[in-house]
């Protein structure tokens, strides 16, 4: 099937709300090239499990597509129209399995050397969309907080090297009750600006006590899911003919119930957590990777006003000689390696936050847990500066936000 052949019955397998949205937009869909449309449907088909910010963005994009004249469609999508697809792709069930189509399209673009052309087309469309659909500025400046270095007694190196040019390094911040103060400040923002999925706390280990208004996910809470997922992976790879692409498709289609999860009141968050494990690389093994990837996906998808990410020590990667000796199965922790991971993770948290609307007013803070070192970035904070001011973290947040 090709896009001009779309009818309302085509979407009968979609959930009621998604089907309604799809049918309303059939006239727009029919004009779109096949190299583009399934990627849009891939988002749409997951609409029921999208965060509010994603739903708003998707509806705005659909409205924008519907408003284009035929000439504008030709112009905006010319690059996509020039992508040559295979008969297999054209004949696939891209309406009901858009994610699989996009996976196969990806492989096709690489093997036919059309990836660069596709990239140019995608960038052009992105520019067009950005010009037409301006995201709403956040009601308050966004605040990102990264807490790194849990368990590290001392560190002689220079921390926050990538972030220092953008803010002020504070060397004498009082660490006492630091995490509690930060979580209280985050909770206060959640209460004063209650927005669904607007205020997050992600912990790479065991979460600290926190206010129930926060959207919280943690590595430790997902341990049963991680274990079930790894068991599922191992059983799948034993099957004859199973390869990496087949495995990836199976993982992408997993539902929480496939891993023994009971349905919860918050299916959106439950699905989000599962995707962190099935789509993230290394999130099943290393807690530092989990924390960084979870923050990235929360920022990209939920676009929170507040995000506190606390990195925890990950398990140590054993050297070859240790693996060969196999003396102990007890995982050890690598606190120093985890500090380095988290330092980079904090930099990525900041970069990801800066990709959202209101970036010019956004604030960011990274704290070396239980130590005096903090780096703060915000419109009121000088760049590439060091400060010996003494304060606790609550006071520093007052200066920052």
């Amino acid at each position: 099937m090709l896009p001009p052949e779309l009818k309302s019955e085509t979407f009968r397998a979609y959930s009621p709300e998604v089907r309604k949205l799809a049918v309303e937009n059939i006239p727009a869909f029919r004009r779109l090239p096949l190299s583009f449309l399934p990627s849009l449907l891939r988002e749409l088909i997951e609409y029921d499990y999208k965060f509010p910010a994603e739903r708003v963005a998707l509806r705005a994009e659909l409205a924008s597509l519907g408003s284009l004249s035929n000439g504008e469609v030709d112009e905006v999508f010319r690059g996509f129209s020039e992508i040559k697809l295979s008969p297999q792709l054209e004949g696939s069930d891209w309406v009901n399995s858009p994610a699989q189509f996009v996976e196969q399209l990806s492989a096709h673009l690489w093997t036919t050397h059309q990836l660069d052309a596709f990239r140019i087309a995608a960038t052009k469309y992105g520019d067009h969309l950005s010009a037409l659909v301006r995201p709403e500025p956040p009601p308050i400046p966004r605040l990102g907080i990264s807490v790194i270095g849990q368990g590290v007694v001392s560190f002689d190196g220079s921390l926050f090297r990538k972030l220092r040019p953008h803010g002020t390094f504070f060397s004498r911040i009082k660490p006492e009750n630091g995490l509690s103060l930060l979580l209280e400040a985050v909770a206060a923002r959640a209460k004063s600006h209650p927005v669904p999925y607007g205020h997050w706390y992600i912990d790479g280990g065991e979460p600290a006590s926190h206010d129930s208004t926060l959207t919280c996910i943690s590595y430790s809470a997902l341990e049963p899911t991680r274990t079930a997922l790894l068991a599922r992976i191992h059983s799948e790879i034993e099957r004859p003919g199973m390869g990496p692409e087949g495995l990836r498709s199976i993982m992408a289609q997993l539902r929480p119930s496939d891993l023994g999860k009971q349905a919860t009141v918050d299916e959106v968050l439950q699905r989000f957590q599962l995707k962190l494990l099935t789509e993230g690389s290394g999130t099943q093994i290393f807690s530092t990777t989990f924390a960084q990837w979870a923050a990235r996906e929360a920022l990209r998808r939920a676009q929170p006003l507040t995000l506190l990410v606390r990195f925890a020590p990950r398990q140590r990667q054993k050297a070859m000689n240790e693996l060969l000796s196999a003396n102990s199965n007890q995982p050890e922790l690598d606190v120093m390696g985890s500090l380095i991971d988290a330092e980079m993770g904090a930099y990525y948290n900041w970069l990801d936050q800066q990709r959202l609307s209101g970036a010019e007013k956004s604030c960011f803070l990274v704290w070396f847990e239980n130590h005096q070192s903090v780096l703060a970035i915000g419109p009121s904070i000088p760049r590439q500066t060091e400060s010996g001011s003494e304060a606790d973290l609550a006071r520093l947040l007052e200066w920052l936000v």
Partner: protein
Amino acid sequence: MTKLRQACTYTAGLLVHPDHDIAFLLSSSRREFLRSAAGLTLGSALLRSPLARAAKISTKKKVVVVTFGGGARDQETFAPEGEENIPGMMREMLPRASFFTQVVNRGILGHYVATASLATGVYETINNFAALPPANPTVFEYYRKDLKRPSSDAWVVAPSNGFNRIGESNHRSYGEGMGARVILPKYLLKAAMSGGGADYDHLLRDNYENPYYTPELGNREFELQQLEMILKLSADDFRSHAKTLSSPDELSLYIVRQLIRQVAPSFLWITMHDIDVAHAGAYSLYIEGIRRTDRLCAELWRVLETEPEYSGKTTLLVLPDFGRDADEDAGGNGFQHHRTGDAAARTTWLMVIGPDVREGVIYDRAVESTDLVPTLGAMLGFSASFAQGRPISELV
């Protein structure tokens, strides 16, 4: 790589420069860093060396190629903030090398298929995760057929099972029996450890892109025969030594040393893979991988300089198969992957050291990954007739 949505709605507005401009900026900053840090000369300022041009193709000439399966980005290597991670290459190798700052890979950015492309001079499109031969003749086949070299003269030491077919293509004019002999050290280890009961599955992981999948290979007896007949190692000795090493790439270098001493091939190709642990997302492990690879490259160069069969007549070429995603590309996740196809992921470098190579010179014009095979052909005297690239004129 399903990046359309991110590219469309998330990257929008962040990509200021067309990719070719970014590639140029990458190579320019790499060049400026090298000029200031290592005091190298810009190649475009030099006349061609009459010595290099007049150098005769000697049958005693040897070539060693090292590729990194798992690119390292400039900021962690050839940049002011990355210099600390590569002391071996910076201090020992670079002052004696010709360095090409802009090697562009326009093919598929998967390690097996990219290595196959490097080895054929054609952007291969074979399945990255299957043990399949390249479709086009490999450099080993050209070398052996044109120069009538025995099978013992061309070897590949490669990191994972998926590379076991890298030595020869299924091209009808070349193919079976004309390629290089391939050693997979991890597979040797598996054969040697068989029945040992140790928990070394993690070590034998085939690749970091798809860590759960390992193509199955041939029989254990053949691997043990390789150990004993060719490398002159008993399974016990090999096992004991392996227990003193910290990584698969260290194991590869150990095998390379044995190969150099026992067989002394004229054409040796080594693919390293430790850096690719970056796919697990732990930055400290990625940095460790870079530091280890740097140390192993410097060690290899010292071996080549001191072994009588190699000293003074060996050209060493070192290059990553491609780069990794830039931090600034919202479609990726920084150092972790090489999925965006952006300039940082496609652009890397080449370092060449040897008796006929200018020392301490930087070349910042763009060359392609597929130029490697024709360049080797011009160096060694064979014709890479099916390769897409062209010889790098500064090296031949």
